[in-house]
């Protein structure tokens, strides 16, 4: 049936509602990744958002059981130019639509996604509604996104290395997998874990995951991070990066339309090397707010110069805005997990000597 995407500014895009669920609200964002829709829709960072794919043919390789980034899709709606109902890939278990239908996600197909993307680029990210009635109003929902996507209970992913307190703000499975594969003994905590909760395991290091929404809403995590800075090595990715920056006294700002895709060029200012990275963020650390006496900007985006990574000059704290774990996207910068392990080991030894 005919369906519409209506934006805050009143503009309406007409297409076909092909899903069972015919309605969804959210912040409308676009991603330029040409592959990786399965990873994207199950990436909890997209919670609360209607995702627009700029690549026009979506669903080509179906859904397989290996490439989920979490238990279920967290998007509020999915907008494509053309949906492929006959996937072709040896791993495909079901079609994209059947999967999204199972989880009640509205899917709008036949949309001029390029025109929509240009609108979002020019006007900035807007709220919108997928509906079969263009007269419907766009609702503002007040869901606590972190609560929605974070783990409800603590759990452990055993490893033979140092103990890592992992604050789950809506993590992608790949991050856990990468950290575990470099040897961390991971204890996953919910987004609102307190200092005492975490100290129960006496971790060797703290990690802050990716996640949805405005970093300033993650008040518990910011507080927690403040406690650990200077005490334990701390690493953050994406939302985790923004939280570390806030904990260090920097500011974050909402970007016009964010960075979402698998082709974001990043320069490592320490090594003068460039990487293509996977990204998914709508907020960024404000460059002017960084205290350059204490904090070094380690990475910048080559397209717009925004901050992509920071490091404390004296303390074992660093973070990156992009997704080194890839999935979807390029695997060019996975060595950051090794680097984290190295740092943790160094500090572990130091603490050991200090205690002795």
């Amino acid at each position, binding site marked *: 049936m005919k369906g519409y995407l209506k934006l805050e500014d009143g503009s309406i895009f007409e297409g076909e509602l092909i899903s069972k669920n015919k309605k969804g609200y959210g912040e409308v964002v676009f991603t330029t990744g040409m592959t990786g829709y399965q990873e994207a829709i199950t990436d909890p960072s997209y919670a609360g958002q209607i995702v627009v794919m*700029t*690549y026009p043919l979506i669903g080509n*390789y179906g859904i397989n059981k290996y490439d989920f980034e979490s238990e279920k899709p967290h998007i509020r709606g999915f907008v494509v130019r053309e949906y492929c109902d006959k996937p*072709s890939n040896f791993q495909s278990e079901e079609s994209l639509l059947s999967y999204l239908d199972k989880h009640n996600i509205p899917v709008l197909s036949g949309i001029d996604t390029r025109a929509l993307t240009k609108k979002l680029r020019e006007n900035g990210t807007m709220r919108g509604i997928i509906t079969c009635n263009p007269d419907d109003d766009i609702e503002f929902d007040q869901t606590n996104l972190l609560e929605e996507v974070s783990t409800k209970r603590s759990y452990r992913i055993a490893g033979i290395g140092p103990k890592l307190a992992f604050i789950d703000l809506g993590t992608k499975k790949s991050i856990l997998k990468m950290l575990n594969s470099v040897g961390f003994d991971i204890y996953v905590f919910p987004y609102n874990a307190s200092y005492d909760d975490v100290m129960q395991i006496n971790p060797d290091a703290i990690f802050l995951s990716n996640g949805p929404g405005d970093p300033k809403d993650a008040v518990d995590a910011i507080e927690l991070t403040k406690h650990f800075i200077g005490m334990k090595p701390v690493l953050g990715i994406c939302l985790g990066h923004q939280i570390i920056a806030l904990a260090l006294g920097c500011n974050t700002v909402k970007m016009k339309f964010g960075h979402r895709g698998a082709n974001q060029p990043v320069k490592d200012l320490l090594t*003068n090397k460039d990487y293509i990275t996977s990204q998914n963020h709508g907020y960024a650390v404000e460059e002017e707010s960084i205290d350059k006496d204490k904090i070094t900007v380690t990475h910048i985006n080559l397209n717009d110069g925004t901050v992509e990574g920071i490091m404390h000059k004296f303390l074992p704290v660093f973070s990156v805005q992009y997704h080194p774990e890839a999935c979807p996207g390029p695997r060019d910068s996975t060595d950051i997990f090794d680097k984290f392990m190295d740092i943790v080991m160094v500090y572990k030894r130091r603490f050991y000597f200090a205690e002795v």
Partner: protein
Amino acid sequence: MPKYKDISKVLVIGSGPIIIGQAAEFDYSGTQACKSLKEEGVQVVLVNNNPATIMTDTDIADIVYIENPTVEVVEKIIAKERPDGILATLGGQTGLNLAVKLKEAGILDKYNVKLLGTSFESIKTAEDRELFKRKMQEIGEPVAESLTVTNVEDALKFAKNYGYPLIIRPAYTLGGTGGGIAHNDEELISIVDLGLKKSMVGEVLVEKSLYGWKEIEFEVMRDAADNCITICSMENFDPVGVHTGDSIVVAPAQTLSDYEYQMLRSASIKIIRALKIEGGCNIQFALDPQSHKYYVIEVNPRVSRSSALASKATGYPIAKVAAKIAIGLRLDEIKNPVTGKTTAFFEPALDYVVTKIPRWPFDKFYTTDRKIGTQMKATGEVMAIERSFEASLLKAVRSLEIKAYGLRLDSVRGMGTKEILEGISVPNDMRLFYIAEALRRDIDINYINDVTKIDKWFLNKLSNIVNMEKEIEENELSKEILKKAKRMGFSDREIATIKGIKEEDVRTLRKKYGIYPSYKMVDTCAAEFESVTQYIYSTYGEEDEVETHDIPKVIVIGSGPIRIGQGIEFDYCSVKALWALKEAGIKSIIINNNPETVSTDFDTGDRLYFEPITLEDVLNIYEKEKPLGVMVMFGGQTAINLTEELVKNGVKILGTSFKSIDISEDREKFSKLLKELNINQPKGGYALTVEDAKDIALKLGFPLLVRPSYVIGGQSMEKVNTLQELIDYVKHATEVSPGKPVLIDKYIDGREVEVDAVSDGECVLIPGIMEHIERTGVHSGDSFSIYPARNLTEREINTIIEYTEKISKALNIKGLINIQFAVKEGTVYVLEVNPRASRTVPIMSKATGVPMVKLAVEVALGKKLKELGYKGGLWPQTPYTVVKAPVFSMEKLTDVEVSLSPEMKSTGEIMGIDLSYEGALYKALEGAGLKIPKKGKILLSIAERDFQEAVSLVEKLQSLGYEIYATYRTGKYFSLMGIHANIMSLDHAIKLLKNGYFDAVVNTPTKGKKPDNAGFKLRRTAVEYRIPLFTSIDTIKAALNAVSKVNINGLSVLSMNEYQEIQKDNVKNLVL
């Protein structure tokens, strides 16, 4: 890292003539590279013997040598110019091979020339199969089980161990020359034997076949600081087993999950790092459709056809960036010219689907084997951009100009199902249409997938197209249906054919419903950033984001895919026309669909519409842009053929009017005109039936030249000597295109002369007169031609000038005109008139220094030649000589008759230029692979009718000290004439030929069009073993002249800049 400080002058090697496997894409990459280096303040010296290229214009490179890229010549150029560096990775395999030879000969070191970009060692590693295999094993990238062999026995041993099928690839060749798939010992022996002879180093690789796996390509770039990006992934519609140049290719890859995509992307980056490539490279993978197992098939350590395609598919200018990397810049120091803001370090994101379809020469060689495989056979390709695969494919199909406007071909639809299934089972040029027909006949997709190994994703899409056909057929053309069909890419014409109505009816209906195309931009970033380019494609049912402005602008129609008869020359003309428009202060718009060319570089014109060149597509753009008019004279027959319909639809043609075009193309009207002007022409007539033909033959007498009306490149033109031949020909022709007359002319056995002129309707400027070495009856595109003409009397020259002026004025030519003459015993006949740019415009512009295209554009815009500073008449002739030689790709096309005839067969051309006539001819022969040694063994096998003429040739050969060998009949005749020749059987001669015993072969084919097996085999063997073969006595005579008289050490090594200075002085002196 800024550019290297010690590099201020760079030698760029071009790729030479257009041959199968190495086409216009290297003019595109070379031109980009030259411009890119100049931007960085580097002086560019270029060597390329292909005069039809844009890059050999002195406004692209600073100093241009149109010389053969041999070690000897290039050493002289290096000694003269003393460049600091040499850039060899942008001139195809030719450039790469030359660089290797220069290095090995110690010349680069001797003159302290730095090899820029990828290092010598890296080139070696990527090109040498064994080194490459070892390197891949070292970094843990899988390569298929294989063995490099230098003899047939080892290949057989390998086969015993690993079984069949096996792929055979010779080392250091291009387009897979000499490769193939062997299914048994017999095939293995013959392919390996040939491959060993083709390889520059006498090695071939025998490899386990991965037939049926997915073939995926990545274009990768790396700078000297080790920063790497992938530009584009491409997926071959045809799985492994079909050369990627002969495959339908889509970008980006469609059936890969992110995991698979990233797996291959990571492997690509690992490989480019391991090979330490500085610049661009192409990596091909075979991916198992049933697992994540993959193999690296090959790496091209240079820009390639695929990189040209990737550049056009994404908007990312690979060659331009590669050139900058070669002189030391980092990717993040190079600006992205598309956005104008970001850097070259990024990966393009596409929001459309690109489809490339090869253009094969089988319409010309209709008797040949149409199978495709590991050896490339396509001469060119088309590309299309749309928002869905179906629409992208359909656009590409109609860009091919094979009279297909969709997937329905009458010839295929008339076949039996058995034939269709056979057509599917073996890869061939028509397979796409066979598959569509099979789907129409409800053949199961699983079955097709099983037989073809083409991914079901593609087959399902074809099925969508076929279903849409049915929907159109079975329903009223409602707004809904029409909208759906247009969105899926159906052309008005295809819809009309399905409904049995006229194309214009569909167009009218479509407009009534308000269904118009909308236009989108290619911006490298899927709209994430604003872009400054004007690179545009059409789609339906979406927002039109392309604004038009009310300013003076002109549309130039390009020439579509490269094919025999319509080559890069027409792209040269289109590009020059765009530049001339810019200079005249008019916005230039180009419509073209050939991804290999300079004209489809987004900054060549002010606006590029990457679209099919059909009436519908051109009209749509015309109606959107509302230009001053359309120029059809530069895009070869493609553009000319559209003129009538365009004019009928109210399009304004700039330049020569349609009426004049029609007169010159219409046999009867043209004949009448010549009669009125009192100009000689061969007597002739036309026949609609065999009976007509007989009557005409009776009147004119044999030999006759026969051809269908409205031709390009002398398609199917033949010389017939007997009534039976004539009957056979007319029968076939009327079958192929019923209702279309066959033209029959008296054959004039004379000298052929050609003229290109610029006319404003009153004043006619003739830059020069060219004379062909071969007499009439050999297609002008396949002849050696000499400028200035040498064997014409003053009276003949004056007649030629007079005729040219008369015809140009009578036709009110406003722009370019090409006239072909035959001169016999002092009489000048007009054979043909083309009221458009011809194949020889680039070479004549370069030879004479007259900017022909620019003048033509100005004239078409309303200027007079006088205002432009030119007078009419013949331009002062140059004190140096230019010889154009045809270049063939016969090695790649098995089973094709190679002898010269009225039907054009060459794919490219080269130019020899020298202060002396012999020198120019010698250079041309060398460039064309027809250089014969001063002494040696010549094999003659002559047709009876040429015996008499051959006598003088043999006497000459003898007097020059050649050893003469002859086949039985030829030898017998010679001994009758008292000439000694070593006589042998044809079979024995072929055997000796294979062993490299002869230095040249002279063979004139016996006529009769009956399968001439032995002679055919002789000619094919000579071609395949690269022995100079002469099928016209005229050519060998000229060659002997050149070889015997030329002073090899006295050949001039002058740049085109120097020649132009010489000519400038010459013109000045003559005027004073």
